[in-house]
C-alpha cells in the first residue's frame, strides 16, 4: 500500500469556504495520505471530500494519529494476520476514514468489551435467552435484512464494527447497518418482553442492547444508551433519580437546551407573537405563565410591547413554578431580573410569583385578577400541561381555572407525539421514533457543554417515560389532535396563528445551521416545528367560546 506525505501549503483561508487554492491533484492516486493540520482544519473536510474521503475537521488530528499507529502496526504484524484481512468477508467503506481507522486498529488490538454502567455488562449472555425469541429478529446473521427506516445511525454510509460472538469469542466483522437494525429489534423485543412480564428475557436483551449500542455512532448510540438505561431501571425496578425535586437542575438543563437547538426559541417566539397580536390596542395587559422557569420567554415580548405602535402597555406578569430544592425564592429572583429589563426599556412592570407543586393546586381567586375591561389576560403554557395527565381530574381542573380567568388568548406548546397510550409497547415505540428524530437533529450542532446538557435533558425525559408508572410518570405527551379534542370539549376554540408568526419562525430556523433539516408547518392554524418530515413540537393558541 502506498503512502504519501502530503503537505498543504499555507494556512487555509477561513474567509472563503470554497477556496480552491490548495493543491490536491497530485495525490489523487494514493489510497491513504497523511495530512498536517494547519491553524484551522475547517477546510480540510472539503479538500478530502474532493478525493472521496469523508473526514470531519474536528477529527483531523486523531485521524492523523491513527494513521501513524496503523502504519506501525501493519509493519509489525505477522504474515497470517494480514492474510486474514484478505480472506474474511468484510465490508469496508474506506471513505469514512475515522471509523475505518478505528476498526483497523481494533482488529489488531481488540479492546475488552465496554461496560457502559453497572446495569449493562457487555460480555454477552448465554445463547439460550436469545434463541428463545422466535423468528430471526435478533439471532440471524444473514445479510437479508430490510433496513429499518427508524434506525438513524448511518448518515454517511456503512461503517465497520467489530463484535465478539457469544461463546467462541472469535472476531466477526459485521456490517454496522445490520447492527443498527439488530439494535432496534433488540430494543423492541426487550420492550415486548417487559410488556409480557418476561423479565429474564428482558434482562438478557438489555445486556445485548448495551453491547450493540456501543457499536453504533452518533445519535443512534446516544438514544439507544438512554433507552437501554431506562429499560434496565424498569426491569430492576429502580426508581430514577428524583426528577420531581431537583428543579434547579432541570432549569439549568433547560437553559442549555434553549441555547443548543431552536425548539424552545421557536416555542417562545411563536407564542409571543400570538400574545402580541391578541394584546393589540389594550392598555393594561396581564400574562399568567404556567411555565416560568428562567423567564426566558418574556424579554422578547416586553421588547415587542415597548416598540409597538402607540407605546407600551402596563405589563403585569404572574409566574407559576414548582418549589426550589434549596428553599430559595427562585421565582422572586426571576421577577427582579425581568423588572430590571423592564426599567431599562421603559415598560411599566408588575410581577407576582406563585409556588405550586402542581398546576392543579391553583385557583383563580389566588391570582388577583382585575376586571376584564381594565386588564386583558393571556395564559401561557410551554411543555407543562402534559404533566397533569397523570392525575385524575388534573387537566380538567386546570382548564376550568383557565376558563375562570377568561383570557383573551391561551397559548399552548407541547411535544407532538403520543406517549400516553395505555399499552407500554406502543408508548415505547412512539417515543423511540420521537427521540431518535430529536437526537438526530442535535447531531448537526458542534459539540459543546451545552449540547451534552441538552442530551441529558432529553435523557431524563426518556427515563421518566420508560421507567416510571402511575403518578410518577409525568412525561405524558399527546398529539395536537388529542389536545384539540380536549380543549374543544372544555369550551375552547382554536385561534389561528397568523402569518407573522410563521414568517418569524421560518426566519429563526434559517438562522440555525442554515435551516437545514428543520421545517415549519402550519396545521389548522397551529404551527409545528419538525425535523425533516417529522413534526416535533406544536404551538397552538386557544380562545374561549363565546357561549361559555
Amino acid at each position, binding site marked *: 500500500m502506498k503512502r504519501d506525505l502530503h503537505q498543504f501549503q499555507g494556512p487555509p483561508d477561513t474567509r472563503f*469556504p470554497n477556496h480552491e487554492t490548495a493543491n490536491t491533484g497530485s495525490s489523487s492516486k494514493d489510497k491513504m495520505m497523511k495530512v498536517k493540520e494547519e491553524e484551522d482544519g*475547517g477546510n480540510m*473536510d*472539503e479538500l478530502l471530500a474532493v478525493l472521496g474521503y469523508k473526514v*470531519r475537521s474536528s477529527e483531523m488530528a486523531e485521524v492523523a494519529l491513527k494513521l501513524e499507529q496503523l502504519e506501525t502496526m501493519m509493519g509489525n504484524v505477522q504474515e497470517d494476520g494480514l492474510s486474514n484481512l484478505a480472506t474474511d468477508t468484510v465490508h469496508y467503506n474506506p471513505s469514512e476514514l475515522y471509523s475505518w481507522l478505528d476498526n483497523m486498529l481494533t482488529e489488531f488490538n481488540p479492546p475488552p468489551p465496554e461496560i457502559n454502567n453497572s446495569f449493562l455488562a457487555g460480555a454477552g449472555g448465554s445463547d439460550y435467552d436469545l434463541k428463545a425469541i422466535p423468528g430471526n429478529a435478533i439471532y440471524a446473521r444473514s445479510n437479508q435484512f430490510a433496513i429499518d427506516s427508524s434506525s438513524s445511525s448511518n448518515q454517511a454510509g456503512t461503517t465497520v464494527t467489530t463484535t465478539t460472538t457469544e461463546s467462541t469469542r472469535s472476531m466477526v466483522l459485521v456490517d454496522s447497518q445490520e447492527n443498527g437494525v439488530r439494535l432496534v429489534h433488540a430494543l423492541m423485543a426487550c420492550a415486548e418482553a417487559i410488556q409480557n412480564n418476561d423479565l429474564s428475557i428482558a434482562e438478557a436483551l438489555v445486556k445485548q442492547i448495551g453491547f450493540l449500542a456501543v457499536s453504533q455512532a452518533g445519535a443512534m448510540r446516544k438514544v439507544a444508551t438512554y433507552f437501554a438505561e431506562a429499560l434496565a431501571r424498569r426491569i430492576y425496578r429502580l426508581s430514577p433519580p428524583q426528577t420531581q425535586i431537583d428543579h434547579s437542575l432541570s432549569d439549568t438543563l433547560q437553559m442549555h437546551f*434553549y*441555547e*443548543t437547538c*431552536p425548539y424552545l426559541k421557536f416555542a417562545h*417566539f411563536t407564542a409571543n407573537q400570538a400574545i402580541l397580536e391578541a394584546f393589540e390596542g389594550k392598555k393594561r395587559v396581564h400574562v399568567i405563565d404556567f411555565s416560568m422557569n*428562567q*423567564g*426566558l420567554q418574556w*424579554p*422578547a415580548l*416586553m*421588547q*415587542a410591547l*415597548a*416598540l409597538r405602535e402607540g*407605546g407600551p402597555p402596563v405589563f403585569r406578569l404572574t409566574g407559576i413554578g414548582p418549589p426550589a430544592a434549596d428553599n430559595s425564592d427562585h421565582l422572586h429572583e*426571576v421577577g427582579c*431580573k*425581568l423588572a*430590571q*429589563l423592564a426599567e*431599562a*426599556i*421603559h415598560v411599566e412592570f408588575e410581577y407576582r410569583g406563585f409556588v405550586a407543586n402542581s398546576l392543579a393546586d391553583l385557583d383563580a381567586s389566588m391570582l388577583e385578577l382585575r376586571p376584564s375591561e381594565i386588564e386583558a389576560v393571556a395564559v401561557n403554557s410551554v411543555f407543562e400541561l402534559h404533566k397533569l395527565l397523570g392525575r385524575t381530574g388534573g387537566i380538567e381542573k386546570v382548564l376550568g381555572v383557565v376558563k375562570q380567568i377568561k383570557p383573551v388568548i391561551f397559548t399552548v406548546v407541547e411535544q407532538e407525539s403520543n406517549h400516553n397510550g395505555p399499552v407500554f409497547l406502543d408508548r415505547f415505540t412512539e417515543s423511540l421514533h420521537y427521540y431518535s428524530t430529536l437526537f438526530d437533529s442535535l447531531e*448537526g*450542532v*458542534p459539540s459543546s457543554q*451545552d449540547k451534552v446538557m441538552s442530551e441529558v435533558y432529553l435523557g431524563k425525559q426518556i427515563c421518566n417515560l420508560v421507567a416510571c408508572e402511575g403518578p410518577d410518570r409525568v412525561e405524558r405527551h399527546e398529539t395536537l389532535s388529542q389536545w384539540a379534542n380536549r380543549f374543544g370539549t372544555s369550551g375552547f376554540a382554536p385561534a389561528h396563528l397568523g402569518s*407573522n408568526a410563521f*414568517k*418569524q419562525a421560518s*426566519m*429563526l430556523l*434559517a*438562522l*440555525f*445551521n*442554515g435551516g437545514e433539516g428543520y421545517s415549519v408547518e402550519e396545521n389548522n392554524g397551529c404551527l409545528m416545528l419538525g425535523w425533516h418530515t417529522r413534526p416535533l413540537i406544536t404551538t397552538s393558541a386557544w380562545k374561549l367560546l363565546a357561549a361559555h
Partner: protein
Amino acid sequence: MSKKRIGMVEKSNNKRQRVNLVPEFSINDHHDVLVEILRRLDGPSLCSAACVCRLWSAVARNDSIWEELCFRQVSPRPSLSIRSVVSALGGYRRLYFLCIRPFLARLPKILWSQDQLQLSLSLYCVHYYERIYVGAAPPSSLMFLRMPVNVV
C-alpha cells in the same frame, strides 16, 4: 495644524512663482464631518476605519454611525422610540456585531426588512436579559449565530 504653506506653481511662461496655498485642511479637526463620512460606509469599511488610529477609533464609537448601518436597508425607517430601547440594551454597535452582522452572514440573500430587524431586536433583548440573569458567565443564547455552521 493649519499652517500656511508656500507652494510652487508652474506658470504658462515657464516661470515658477511662489503662491500662498489655502490652509491645510485636516479631517481630524472636524469630528462632525468625519462622523458624517463614516456614516456612509458599509460594515467592513467602517471596521477598517476604526482601526486607523486612536482618534478614529474613538470617533467610530459614535452610536449614530452604527444606527445608520443597522437601518440602512430598512424601509420604512423605524420610529425613534427604537433608539431609546436599543441604547438601553447596549447600543447599536453591539447590536450590529452580535445580531445583525451574523444574521446577514448567515442569510446573505435575504431582503433586510422590518421583520428581520424585529427578530434581531428580540434576540438582542434575550441576550441582554441573559447577561443580567447569568451575571458572571457569558451568556450563550447568541452562540448559534456565531458558531460556524457544521457542514458535515
